[in-house]
């Protein structure tokens, strides 16, 4: 297929190449996982330009990658993946992680099936809405002292579990076991501490959510069975990040890094791509601070899950032995990590940026819990609040092509303002109600901003990553109860 952009060439049904000729200064080509159906929406804004800008980063290896849910971000596109060679002066860019450090998603299974919650859903959603802090200015129930906050930053979800809010098994089923190691809370500003203290255990607003979902289709019976997942089973999905703590860390370090391109003689075409060599003082400091924020986010999602378990127990008047609300997995989708890959046959330590992209390690990797090592890493892909979400697993092909990465969601199609101006809140609510979806939201405009019409169809996105082989479909869920900020 010939696009109107000569530098953009189709490589296969689900893969396009943006060659270096697109913009002088690109060190590598861009590779975009998309198809002809989704390509026009990609060309509507400046996401492609951002794929090219990422290719300017010193030390970038192989390609500037974009997942099919790519859309216009700032610095990196949302859905962008880039790995830099640490030993060869490769850089780390806070813009390659984003403000919501370790924004991510977790999937919790339950021992319940759809018929178990029929007729009870409205009350259950109401109780969740009133129990889980969400929206602008919300505060969590856990009041941290500064020393407790420091411990949380060092230990992440483990600290929360040590306080009695979860199990060892939860940690095993969390990326990095819910804790980035060797972080220094001394590198965190007072502002970040102040913002973080009251917000742990809060959902946030915007696209963050807590959803009760029902599995409506199984694609891989064998893997689903190993995960104890079956059709009509009830699961809970939680999408949140590092709250004001992470936003402050990113803002602080983005400001610090504004000087770095000049200091290290780095040319990047966007201030939001300010970066420093991973091994530099600034690079190391950012990664350590980012690790603290990542740990905050894992602690946050662990607390949100604990609260959800409590609500289910209280509402259904049964314990966890019956409810069996076990964590399937928790994945980060805004993060930079040191990972080792074979580059031209030589093992290299790379700094892998995933901005709106999910780790999708294939079978056999030591980083995965033993129980998942034969199937690959569970990958959780949330869709919009009216369509589906998915559980996938990572593949060996992702290890070869995308530094073990895949998509992270549906990706926006309409701007928030466009959605607010063109959609009728009551109509959106009615459409959701007609589909059997109960929704509660604190924000006046959230319903329109987050309406299904404002997003690409997640089914299209998942089809691409599945067909391209960078992850594999296990099962599909449909939402039945949605809590939004």
């Amino acid at each position, binding site marked *: 297929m010939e696009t109107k952009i000569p530098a953009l060439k189709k490589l296969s049904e689900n893969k396009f190449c943006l060659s270096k000729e697109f913009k002088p200064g690109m060190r590598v080509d861009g590779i975009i996982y998309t198809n002809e159906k989704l390509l026009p929406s990609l060309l509507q804004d400046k996401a492609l330009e951002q794929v090219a800008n990422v290719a300017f980063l010193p030390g970038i290896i192989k390609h500037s990658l974009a997942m099919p849910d790519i859309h216009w971000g*700032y610095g990196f596109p949302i859905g962008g993946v880039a790995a830099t060679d640490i030993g060869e002066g490769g850089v780390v860019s806070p813009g390659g992680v984003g403000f919501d450090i370790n924004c991510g998603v977790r999937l919790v299974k339950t021992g319940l099936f759809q018929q178990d919650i029929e007729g009870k859903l409205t009350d259950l959603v109401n109780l969740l809405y009133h129990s889980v802090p969400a*929206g*602008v200015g919300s505060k969590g129930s856990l009041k941290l002292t500064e020393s407790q906050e420091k411990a949380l930053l060092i230990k992440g979800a483990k600290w929360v579990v040590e306080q009695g809010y979860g199990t060892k098994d939860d940690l095993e089923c969390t990326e990095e076991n819910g804790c980035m190691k060797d972080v220094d809370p001394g590198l965190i500003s007072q502002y970040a501490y102040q913002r973080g203290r009251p917000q742990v255990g809060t959902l946030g607003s915007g696209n963050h959510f807590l959803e009760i979902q029902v599995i409506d289709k199984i694609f891989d019976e064998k893997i689903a069975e190993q995960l104890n997942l079956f059709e009509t089973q009830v699961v809970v999905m939680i999408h949140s990040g590092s709250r004001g703590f992470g936003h402050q860390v990113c803002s602080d370090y983005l*400001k610090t890094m*504004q*000087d770095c391109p000049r200091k290290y003689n780095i040319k990047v075409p966007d201030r939001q791509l300010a970066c420093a060599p991973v091994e530099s003082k600034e690079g190391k400091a950012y990664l350590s601070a980012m690790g603290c924020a990542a740990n905050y986010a894992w602690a946050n999602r662990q607390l949100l899950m604990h609260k959800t378990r409590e609500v289910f127990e209280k509402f259904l008047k049964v314990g966890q032995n019956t409810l069996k609300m076990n964590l399937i997995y928790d994945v980060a989708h805004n993060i930079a990590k040191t990972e080792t890959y074979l580059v031209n046959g030589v093992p290299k330590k790379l700094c892998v940026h995933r901005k709106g992209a999910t780790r999708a390690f294939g079978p056999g990797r030591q980083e995965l819990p033993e129980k998942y090592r034969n199937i690959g890493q569970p990958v959780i892909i949330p869709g919009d609040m009216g369509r589906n979400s998915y559980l996938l697993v990572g593949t060996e092909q992702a290890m070869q092509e995308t530094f073990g990465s895949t998509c992270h969601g549906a990706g926006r199609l309409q701007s*928030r303002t466009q959605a607010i101006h063109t959609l009728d809140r009551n109509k959106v609510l009615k459409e959701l109600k007609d589909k059997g979806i109960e929704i509660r939201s604190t*924000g*006046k405009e959230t319903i329109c901003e987050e309406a299904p019409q404002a997003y690409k169809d997640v089914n299209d996105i998942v089809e691409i990553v599945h067909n391209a082989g960078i992850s594999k479909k296990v099962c599909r869920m449909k939402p039945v109860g949605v809590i939004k900020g």
Partner: protein
Amino acid sequence: MSAKKYEQIEHTADIGLKIFGKDKKTLFINAAQGMFSLIAVRKSAAKKIKTSQEFKVEVQADGLEGLLVSWLSELLTLADIYSIVATRLYVSHLSSKSIQARVSAEPLSDSAYTMKTEIKAVTYHLLKIVKNKTGFQGTVFFDI
């Protein structure tokens, strides 16, 4: 009719503001008011809050555009920590590298405000300040 202070700009994932000011100080004040208008809107029937908090704000940056990001970031941080909305802003000093201001604020309460959006951060994305015939015009995007 008073001059337009700011207007929203479309962006696929986030929100931008185009800001206007007859001078730089007004531009910075209007940018702050624009940002708070995205977070929450005062209910017209809400009673006037008698007790307001006062903050002294001082920030530095390398250049006027970077200073706009730092200024808004500082206000956003204060708003998040103290759960407040700025009601009056007075800029006492503004150069291309630093700003000093006094900010009056009131609590961001459900009774007085309709909550809109939580802004995560102020970005450097497409950041711009230009001088034109009527004064200054700025562009800034927020991560939400």
